[in-house]
Structures are given as structure tokens and as C-alpha cells.
């Protein structure tokens, strides 16, 4: 069931709260960060460490005629220069991507996107390495690039992937979901059919810390230690073992403090592999840190879907069906980081939060001469695109029906009694109660008052818009029967040890890139064991120190690893109960648990604390028969289903009619992520995602010119919101626990990134209603808004 209340609480009233378990708690990781003592990959300094720099293709498509490295090799500080041809000799020129494609580590035959890796230099310092790149002479034979996704499949288009046997076009894959025939039927009977072309442009996660690694191969014991900006250290280790042929137990991947991930740090990039090769060949530690332009031009982009959205409804606003045709730009290699059986990620949830009769999606993915990637930027495996499509097309329908967009949504929500709800594309929504969430957002925003204000302003020629977005997410991959990354099942391990004095260490297979795992996971274990969070050390991000698991992305830490932590703590508690029964000299069935201690039923004075039990478990004297010493457990949690958080967002914008500049005046976000472990951290996650949404809606885009040159290759050109473009966020919540998660929690890390772009765009389009605008594509820069006001909205690509 859902609990809702509208009464505001203040952020700080529980400031001094030190919860034993769930609740607002200051972060355990912060003391080191505010002292400048975080340890990120570029902070790693090893004796004798060398520096690696990568030479990249200056054009989008060209054949490599020759590479002359002699001058670079002659540079006094250069230790090593490696080309694609040299890697090919070692069988290392190509590596598998996370989507069963291959990607060049260093180009051998052709370069296929601007910024592709061509050669690398290892030198004594980073300045010399950069200098030596200038000394490498590459002769290219220019080829026509494929830039426009719409013409990529033309028979006349140059074939990008001629490295693949028998490849004669740029087709990457086809994918469909839903029921085409049933959908056609509901469209045929509908009173109203609305369709529009909706583009989700290419954007980039651009974490403040770029990607990089330090590889340290010890030739004596054959062990490779790799500090790496990775969101998935265990999966990476296995892939390195497969690619480089190193035994897996001789590889240690450390993901230290990470300066933001957002999906950018899920794939294995050529640079990581180059640093490993560099260390293998020089016998020295080798550091590679990409610069910002390398990050923006060569690492995992996000989105790039050209969508045709169609919606069918009755005249009174009952949505009957949704249909979409998608052209997906996957760049030069299919580097999508998604579960293998889901080439379009979880885009299949495009039916959103609505109970409809039929749905169908047909997708074609193509190769273009652009950087690979596709799943990143807090997208929950393409749910950003799905939610944007459905929330935009629902607003188009509201426009055609001349109906209030809130009313239209309320009329079509899946009802609470329908959960678990199987969508028309086969997704089983675990729980949800949408109307209270929607109502709370409207109440917090003062929705009716805003509409009145808008009416008055319109009469005066002022442009004000109110945009609504209601989303349902699907996060926390697995289950492993359905979901794997290159054959690795999407489950997560967890290990808990309680030391004799009652302090504990919990080891996770996921790790933080800022989400606060060291705090949240201590709280999860604390809630189950009664050990204060301050007494629980959280170890993560090191394959030698932690159990196997698939990593942090797709909002999966709390749904999967959080469940593992809760269950492993319960396992420890179960053992503690047996030890307690021995200590209290009553049968285990006669004792009760209150957080932190067991006592004899009916006699609270006869009790032992978890700390007493820990000492007993390790101490002298006998334990009950059959009980081993020690107080620890481990688990590998395989989720039964995804979790389905939801939320209602309302955005208010003002547009200057003379300059077409958009100002986001207010943003109200009501999220329901089930049980809330640390509300402060949840709120922080939401705030960050909302800022992403404003960025994508108004300014962020990786654009290309007709020659395939990237126009978003620096933070001067790829604009990210500053404190001046975003309002003070207004948040609220409802609580609909997940029925299958041990503590009822759902993921929340990506909810706001998923849910907010349509709210902003819907608000801008709503403001432009007097100009007859029903749709305009992101990014809604002043120029693009002005063009829409002139009746000529332009697709961004």
C-alpha cells in the first residue's frame, strides 16, 4: 500500500539523528572528501609510473594507409609507441563490446569515428606523452562518412563495418516488441490518432572525472593490478581475463573513489586496455587519464533515438494503444552496455504508467561514423527514451483533445488493484499506486493556481508553461535467467562479518560513484542487525576484497545488492538467534528479536545484545550443538523481478517572448521508490537527476557536422547546467514498497534523469501553445525555441 502525506518536513530537523538503521544520516564518506582526501584514479601515484597518451583519428571515416612512429620513438622521454598493427600481431587489436560486437582497441584498417584510437605513446610524464603524439605521422585516405541515421541504410551509403564478414550495409539489428496486429486493430477503432516525430538527441554523461586507469603488471608474480574508473569491477576483470588471456585470479581491478559515473564508466574502453598493454610491455605502472575532449568524443554517449510516436484514444481521453517506430544510431561499433537479450535495453516499457489495450514497437538500429555507446547517462537501460516518448506523445494527445494533461494521465493510470501488472509488452510491474503520487505533486505545485496564473499571463501575451511527466521505471537487473552481460548473470554477492567486539565489515559487489553506498549499506545492515552504522565498515570496489557481482548502473545497487545486504544480515541474525538461545538457555523459538538484541519471550530483562553474541561466537566455551564459531555469512542474491519505482514531476517555465529564452522557474518532483533507506541521500539523487533533465531538455547535445566532426567536444560546446539554470528543487514522496524486495526498496538513482526531460519539454511546449506548437525537439535552446515560435520547429539531427 502507499502512504502519502502532504505536510512538509524540514531537511534538518533530524540533523542530529544517528539512526540505527534506516533514516536520515550524514554520510560516512564525506569526512575524507571535504578534506580533499578522496582517492580517485588520477590520484594514484606509483614508483616509476609512466604516462600514456592516445593518438586519435581527426576525421570520421578514413582508411589508414600508413603510420610512422619513428620520430615519436626518438623522443628522449618516450618509452613505447604502439600502433594497431602491433596490437594485431598480439591478437589484441580488437576486443568484444558488451553487446557481442567487436570494437578496435587501436584502428588497424580504418578509422570509423572522429576520436577513434589509432596509436598510443608511453612516456616519462604526461606532458612528454602528449608532445610525442604530435610526432606520429599517419597517412589517411579519406572515405565518405555516414552521419545521418536516416540515410545510413541507403544502398549508396558507404559500408562502415567492412571488418565484419559479408557485411554489405550499415544495418546493426532489428528488434520488435508488443503485438503489431492487435495494435493495428485498436488504432483502427480509435476516435483519435495522434502521431509525431520525436527525437532524443545524442547526449553524454560527462562525469566531472573523466575515464582513466593505472595498470601495474608485476612480471614476477604475474599479477595485474588495475585501478580503473569502472562501475563494474568484477565484470571488467572477467572480460580482461578473456581478452588478454590473463588468468582471472591474477587480475585485481580496483575501482577507487569515482568522480561520477552515470553509465559513462560501464563499458571497457580501449584506453584501459592500452594501459594494460603498456604495463605488460614496459614492466612499469602505466597511467592513462583521458582529457575532456577524449571523454566527450570517444566514450559512451547516450540516447540518439529518432522515434515516430503514435497514440490512439477515444474522444473522451481513454488511451487505447501506443505504437512507435524507432531508428537507433549505435555509432561505429555496437557498444551498448545492456543485458544481452535486450538490444534496445528496457525501451519496451514505453507504454508507461497507463493501462492500455495494445502496444507495438519496431526498431531498426544502424551503424554510423560516430562514437559507440548508447546506454549511459542514468538511462536505466533506455527507459529515458521510453518515458520521453510516452510522456511527450500523451501530451500531444492532450493538445489534440484540448484536455488538461494531468486529467488525461489520471484517467489512464494503471489502478492499484491491477498490480502486479503485466504490460502489453510483457513487463510485470511489481507495485504502484499512481494517483496519490500525481495528486501530491499537483498539491505541492499548486497546480490549479498555476493554471489560473497561466491564463492571466497568456491574456497579457506572456509565455508561461506547465509541464507534467509521470514515469514508471524498471530497475534492478536481473533476474539472472533473463539478464546477463556477456554471459555473466546479473546477480550480486554480499558478505558480512561481525567481529568479536560487535563491529562489522560488509563487502559489496557494487560500488559508489557518489551514491553513498558506504552509508546506505551500513544502514541496511544496521536495520537488520542493530549494529550502529558507525560500527559497520563498507568495503567495495576491489575485486580482491569483495564477492562477485555485476556492478552499479541501471539503478541496481539498492534493488539487487541492497537486497543481498539485507538478506546476508538476516542470515547472520538467524545464526545469532541460535547462539542467543544457548546463552539464554531457552529454545530458539522462545526468544524474540528487538533491534539489536534477543530476549526471552515475556521477559525483556533476560536479553543478550548482538555485541554479546558476537563475542560469544568468537569466544571461549561451547556453542549450541551444530553451530560453528564465528558470526559471518555470505550470499548471492538473484532478484525475482525488477523493481518499478514511479514519480510525478511538474515543471514551470517562463519564456521571454522577445528572445525565446527559457527559464525554469519551479520544479516539483514527487518520487516513489518504495521503502526509503536514507531520505537525505534519496533527495540528493533526485536533485542530480532533475538537473540532468534540465540540461538535456534545454542545452545538452552531442551534435555532428555533415563531415562527422563532433561539435560537442569540449565543455565550452557541450553545455551542462550551472547553478544559475536550475531552480531550488521541490521534492515530495510517496511510499509503495516492492513486494519482492526484502526491505521493499526500489532503485532511485536514475528516476529523475528518466522522468524530468519530458516535464521540461512539456512545459516549454505548453508555453508555446499560443503559437500552435504541439511538439519541439530537445535541446530547447533560445534559437530552437524561437524557430518553433516562427512555426518551423527543427529536428536537432
Amino acid at each position, binding site marked *: 500500500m502507499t502512504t502519502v502525506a502532504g505536510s512538509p518536513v524540514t531537511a534538518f530537523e533530524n540533523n542530529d539523528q544517528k539512526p540505527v538503521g534506516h533514516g536520515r544520516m550524514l554520510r560516512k564518506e564525506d569526512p575524507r572528501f*571535504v578534506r*580533499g582526501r578522496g582517492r*580517485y584514479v588520477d590520484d594514484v601515484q606509483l614508483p616509476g609510473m609512466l604516462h600514456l597518451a592516445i593518438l586519435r583519428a581527426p576525421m570520421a571515416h578514413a582508411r589508414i594507409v600508413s603510420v610512422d612512429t619513428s620520430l615519436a620513438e626518438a623522443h628522449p622521454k618516450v618509452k613505447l609507441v604502439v600502433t594497431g598493427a602491433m596490437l594485431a600481431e598480439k591478437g589484441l587489436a580488437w576486443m568484444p563490446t558488451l553487446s557481442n560486437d567487436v570494437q578496435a582497441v587501436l584502428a588497424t584498417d580504418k578509422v570509423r569515428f572522429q576520436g577513434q584510437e589509432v596509436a598510443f605513446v608511453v612516456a616519462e610524464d604526461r606532458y612528454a606523452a602528449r608532445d610525442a603524439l604530435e610526432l606520429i605521422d599517419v597517412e589517411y585516405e579519406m572515405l565518405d562518412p555516414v552521419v545521418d541515421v536516416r540515410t545510413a541504410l541507403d544502398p549508396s551509403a558507404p559500408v562502415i563495418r567492412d571488418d565484419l564478414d559479408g557485411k554489405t550495409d550499415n544495418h546493426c539489428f532489428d528488434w520488435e516488441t508488443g503485438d503489431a496486429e492487435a495494435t493495428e486493430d485498436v488504432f483502427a477503432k480509435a476516435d483519435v490518432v495522434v502521431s509525431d516525430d520525436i527525437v532524443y538527441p545524442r547526449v553524454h554523461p*560527462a562525469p566531472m572525472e573523466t575515464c582513466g586507469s593505472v595498470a601495474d603488471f608485476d612480471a614476477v608474480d604475474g599479477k595485474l593490478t588495475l585501478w580503473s574508473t569502472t562501475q563494474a569491477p568484477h565484470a571488467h576483470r572477467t572480460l580482461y581475463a578473456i581478452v588478454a588471456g590473463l588468468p582471472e585470479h591474477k587480475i585485481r581491478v580496483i575501482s577507487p573513489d569515482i568522480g561520477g559515473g552515470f553509465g559513462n564508466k560501464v563499458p571497457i574502453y580501449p584506453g584501459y586496455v592500452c594501459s594494460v598493454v603498456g604495463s605488460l610491455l614496459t614492466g612499469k605502472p602505466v597511467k592513462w587519464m583521458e582529457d575532456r575532449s577524449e571523454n566527450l568524443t570517444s566514450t559512451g554517449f547516450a540516447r540518439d533515438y529518432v522515434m515516430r510516436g503514435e497514440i490512439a484514444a477515444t474522444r473522451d481521453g481513454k488511451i487505447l494503444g501506443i505504437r512507435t517506430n524507432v531508428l537507433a544510431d549505435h555509432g561505429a561499433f555496437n557498444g551498448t552496455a545492456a543485458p544481452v537479450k535486450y538490444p534496445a535495453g528496457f525501451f519496451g516499457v514505453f507504454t508507461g504508467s497507463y493501462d492500455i489495450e495494445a502496444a507495438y514497437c519496431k526498431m531498426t538500429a544502424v551503424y554510423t561514423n560516430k562514437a559507440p555507446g548508447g546506454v549511459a547517462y542514468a538511462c536505466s537501460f533506455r527507459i529515458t527514451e521510453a518515458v520521453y516518448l510516452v510522456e511527450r506523445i500523451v501530451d500531444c494527445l492532450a493538445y489534440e483533445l484540448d484536455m488538461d494533461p494531468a486529467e488525461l494521465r489520471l484517467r489512464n493510470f494503471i489502478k492499484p488493484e491491477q498490480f502486479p501488472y503485466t504490460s502489453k509488452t510483457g513487463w510485470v510491474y511489481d507495485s504502484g499506486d499512481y494517483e496519490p503520487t500525481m495528486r*501530491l505533486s499537483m498539491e505541492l505545485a499548486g497546480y490549479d493556481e498555476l493554471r489560473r496564473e497561466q491564463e492571466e499571463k497568456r491574456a497579457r501575451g506572456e509565455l508561461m508553461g506547465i509541464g507534467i511527466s509521470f514515469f514508471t521505471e524498471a530497475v534492478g537487473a536481473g533476474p539472472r535467467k533473463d539478464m546477463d552481460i556477456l554471459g555473466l548473470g546479473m546477480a550480486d554477492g554480499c558478505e558480512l562479518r561481525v567481529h568479536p567486539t560487535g563491529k562489522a565489515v560488509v563487502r559489496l559487489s557494487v560500488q559508489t560513484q*557518489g551514491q553513498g553506498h558506504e552509508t546506505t549499506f551500513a544502514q541496511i545492515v544496521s536495520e537488520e542487525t542493530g549494529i550502529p552504522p558507525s560500527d559497520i565498515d563498507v568495503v567495495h570496489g576491489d575485486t580482491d576484497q569483495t564477492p562477485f557481482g555485476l556492478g552499479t548502473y541501471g539503478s541496481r545497487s539498492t534493488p539487487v545488492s541492497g537486497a543481498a545486504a539485507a538478506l546476508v544480515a538476516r542470515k547472520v541474525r538467524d545464526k545469532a538467534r541460535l547462539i542467543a538461545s544457548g546463552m539464554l538457555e531457552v529454545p530458539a523459538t522462545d526468544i524474540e528479536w528487538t533491534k539489536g538484541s534477543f530476549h526471552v519471550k515475556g521477559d525483556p530483562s533476560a536479553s543478550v545484545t548482538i555485541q554479546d553474541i558476537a563475542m560469544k561466537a568468537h569466544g571461549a566455551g561451547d556453542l549450541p550443538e551444530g553451530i560453528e564459531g564465528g558470526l559471518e555469512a555470505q550470499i548471492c542474491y538473484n532478484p525475482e523481478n525488477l523493481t518499478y519505482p514511479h514519480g510525478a514531476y511538474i515543471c514551470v517555465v517562463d519564456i521571454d517572448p522577445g528572445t525565446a529564452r527559457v527559464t525554469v522557474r519551479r520544479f516539483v518532483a514527487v518520487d516513489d521508490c518504495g521503502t526509503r533507506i536514507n531520505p537525505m541521500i534519496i533527495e540528493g539523487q533526485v536533485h542530480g537527476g532533475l538537473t540532468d533533465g534540465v540540461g538535456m531538455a534545454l542545452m545538452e547535445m552531442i551534435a555532428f557536422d555533415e563531415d562527422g566532426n563532433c561539435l560537442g567536444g569540449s565543455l565550452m560546446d557541450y553545455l551542462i547546467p550551472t547553478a544559475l539554470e536550475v531552480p531550488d*528543487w521541490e521534492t515530495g514522496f510517496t511510499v509503495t514498497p516492492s513486494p519482492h524486495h526484502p526491505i521493499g526498496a526500489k532503485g532511485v538513482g536514475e528516476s529523475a534523469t528518466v522522468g524530468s526531460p519530458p516535464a521540461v519539454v512539456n512545459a516549454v511546449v505548453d508555453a508555446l501553445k499560443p503559437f500552435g506548437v504541439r511538439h519541439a525537439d530537445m535541446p530547447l535552446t533560445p534559437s530552437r525555441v524561437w524557430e518553433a515560435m516562427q512555426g518551423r520547429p527543427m529536428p536537432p539531427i
Partner: protein
Amino acid sequence: MQVTMVVNDEEVTREIEGRLLLVHFLRDHLALTGTHWGCDTSNCGTCVVWLDGEPVKSCTVLAAMAGGREVRTVEGLEQGGELDPVQKGFVECHGLQCGFCTPGMMMTARALLDRNTSPSEEEIREAISGQICRCTGYSTIVRSIQWAAAEEAGTRTTTADAPTADSGSAS
């Protein structure tokens, strides 16, 4: 060439190349890795330190240009084992997540409060507008700086000046 400067109250002298950027001098030569970098074009502000008491982007200052001057970094915020109120504010108000932009944000915040003891929300947003945070969405950074201002003014209470945040209720 040789350069001498005062970093966090301590005079340092090193042999450097003329082209060495201040951020690399601090990180690679002095092992003060609390100062980060995030772009090539002076846009992100993760590298902000003080030069002669004013916040600057240390990726766009040559180490040589800092010769004979005073530099202060995040490592120099804590005084006598006591965290600066700005540092405390960031912890108290969840003004950081991944922590990467945090040192630069705090250096700017400290400089702001030294000039303006009770900045408005707008003044705070303006002050940090040359620095990008990808995690927090800025509201909590604003609150952190307000917290520090109130702490220094002795007007902070546990609840009174707290901005409204989450609305709703858990079961």
C-alpha cells in the same frame, strides 16, 4: 626553471618546466591531490584554488605565474585540526556526492563568505556559476554554504533556518 611559492602557509621551491600548469604542480609535484581537474577549457571549475586570496582556475594558471605568490588549496581549509564551517556545511547539508567538484566549490564558498557574511541564494548561485556539479543539482550546495554562513554568524539552529525539502511521509 625554478619556482618558489607559498602553498597552504608553507614555502615550496621546485624545478619545473615553464609550461607546467598550476593544477599539475599541486597534484604531481606537491602530491596535493585534493584539487581536481575536469576539462581543458576553463569551464568546469573543479580545479579552483586561491591565488593571493582569490579563487582562480588552476588549470589556467601556469605554476610559474604563481611564483612569489600565495596559493591555498582544499588541504589548507582545515585549521588547527578543526574543519572550516564550509567543510562542515557540505557534510551537514549533503552538499556533495562523488566529491569531485567539492574542493573547488568549497574554495569558492570560503572566498564568498569572507567577502559577504550572509549571501542570498542568488548570490551563492552566482558565485559558484563557473563550477559544474554533475551530482547534487546545486540546491544542497547552496544550503551548505548558507549553513556555514549561519554557523559563523552564530545564528544557526537545528531547525529554524532550514529550507523546506522533502514533502511526504513514510509509513
